[in-house]
């Protein structure tokens, strides 16, 4: 029984992935392709945020660190002339190192204090981009960020990126997103994931069984930031414009709403949350000024009726049916 469920689960996952790969066959409108490209970017950013939440601390520096990934890879390409395919991994490494400095002063704190110190240090970094015209472009941001370099594979036509060619961006974002999700999934099932859970449950007992809580928390935060940087980097070279204001605290709030409404307990939570909200936003386009209101209502309703998020709904229904059956018997 358990095996059959597991088998079904993986068939379902593969079907969704296949659907995502085939989507451009059916959806050719550049507008909708744009919506989906942004969806893939948000998924990797939100899933990596959730990964850091598994150890019990909520970081508000996550979105600025995503931005750091974007700035780093844009600058590596523009100032050092690296190819996008080199700039991306280097930018991820640079962001990981910067994350160490951002989280260093935050880590002695926990709970609300961690939330606010991480907000403060993330904001310091963001304001640095606004303040220093060289190299970050100041308030006006970085403009004319080059598109990713064309891909040459022997025997295939050259794949070019550009404002008129959305499909290469679509597949790049999708592939990098899936790669990121796969690594995050494996990490969660590894020893690191189990230690994260222990730290979330009890910091005190974790220390008492010999877990170096500080070090594990740092590793988890840095890994999370690295995957946010992948999202930021794709964003930068896709939109070709980076402004400090793009990564203001409001985006951080939205990302947290996506994760919470989807459910932070399950790996699928942030994915479901992002898909739902990105599509919802398209529905709300005629009344766009009410978007924050609707998001707020959905968040409040979820926290009231489904505190573990939408992905806990199937389990909830199963429990309810089971209860009914027992009551009848």
């Amino acid at each position, binding site marked *: 029984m358990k095996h059959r469920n597991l088998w079904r689960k993986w068939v379902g996952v593969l079907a969704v992935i296949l659907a995502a790969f085939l989507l451009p066959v059916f959806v050719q409108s550049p507008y909708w392709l744009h919506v989906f490209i942004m969806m893939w970017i948000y998924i990797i950013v939100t899933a990596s945020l959730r990964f850091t939440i598994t150890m019990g601390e909520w970081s508000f520096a996550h979105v600025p660190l995503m931005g750091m990934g974007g700035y780093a890879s844009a600058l590596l390409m523009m100032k050092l002339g690296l190819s996008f395919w080199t700039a991306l991994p280097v930018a991820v490494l640079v962001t990981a190192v910067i994350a160490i400095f951002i989280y260093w002063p935050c880590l002695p704190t926990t709970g609300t204090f961690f939330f606010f110190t991480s907000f403060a240090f993330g904001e310091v970094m963001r304001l640095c981009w606004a303040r220093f015209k060289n190299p970050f472009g100041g308030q006006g941001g970085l403009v004319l960020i080059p598109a990713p370099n064309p891909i040459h594979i022997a025997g295939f036509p050259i794949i070019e990126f550009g404002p008129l060619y959305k499909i290469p961006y679509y597949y790049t974002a999708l592939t990098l997103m899936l790669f990121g999700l796969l690594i995050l999934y494996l990490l969660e099932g590894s020893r690191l994931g*189990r230690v994260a859970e222990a730290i979330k449950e009890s910091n005190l007992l974790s220390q008492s069984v010999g877990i170096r809580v500080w070090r594990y928390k740092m590793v988890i935060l840095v890994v999370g930031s690295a995957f946010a940087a992948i999202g930021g980097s794709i964003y930068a070279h896709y939109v070709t414009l980076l402004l400090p204001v793009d990564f203001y605290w409001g985006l951080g709030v939205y990302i947290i709403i996506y994760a919470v409404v989807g459910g932070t307990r399950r790996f699928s939570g942030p994915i479901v949350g992002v898909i739902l909200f990105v599509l919802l936003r398209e529905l709300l386009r005629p009344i766009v000024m009410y978007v924050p209101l609707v998001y707020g209502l959905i968040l409040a309703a979820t926290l009231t009726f489904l505190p573990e998020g939408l992905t806990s709904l199937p389990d909830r229904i199963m429990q309810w049916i089971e209860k009914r059956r027992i009551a009848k018997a």
Partner: protein
Amino acid sequence: MTVSYLHPILQIRDLTKRFGGLTALSEVSFDVHEGEILGVIGPNGAGKTTLFDVITGRYRPTGGRVFYKGEDITGLKPHELVQKGISRSFQLEVLFSNLSVLQHLILSRHLHTEIGFLGSFFHTPSHRERQRSTEANALELLKVVGLDGQKDKTASSLSHGYQKSLGIAVALGTEPTLLLLDEPLSALSPERVEVVLDLILTIRDKGVTVVVIEHNMGALFRICDRVVVLSVGEKIAEGLPEEIRENQKVIKAYLGGAIVV
């Protein structure tokens, strides 16, 4: 049981801990000998738990030193002390509430599980083999503390008595040479008290030195080799259980709650 009094495993010297204006421990000194069960008693607020907190690195002492096997361990972090073989249980249920009993035991083996990060990442056969042996180890330990029937329950769904035993099992999972138990008998049923007393004797017989904080003196005095008495942060007596029972100072400290032994 003959105890060699020549080998102090833990030496506490002039240990002082102040929280602001409150002195929780004031120049406490005593030795813990290898292979013994040492009882630490005292009225509420005597500083017993603070003593454990300072020894195990949760708090830094304001003054004084702690030596373990002759080495100065004052101010080391909890995880460093566990590596050296000092482990503790907690008075209030400090557990991973939402994790199962088995998961607790696996986590308690943290230091004794090879790193094998890549193995756990890719779920290689050698990693699975290691996982199986860790699990077998954990199950064995659960049998020792009498929790083998509860392995899949979450900690928060266990009864108080089982939670206490789980706390001890987690401390044992780190393979300590010195085990500090903070009120392992509090709020247990009389039958359960006997089980835990037997367990403590078993642990000692396996070569682990045990220090026990306890309010239930009647039960404690039946198993411990020596007793240290704290009152308002100071050590007021130290000796064999029979001597402590007669000690006027101790009786006075407990006055109001007449000492019944």
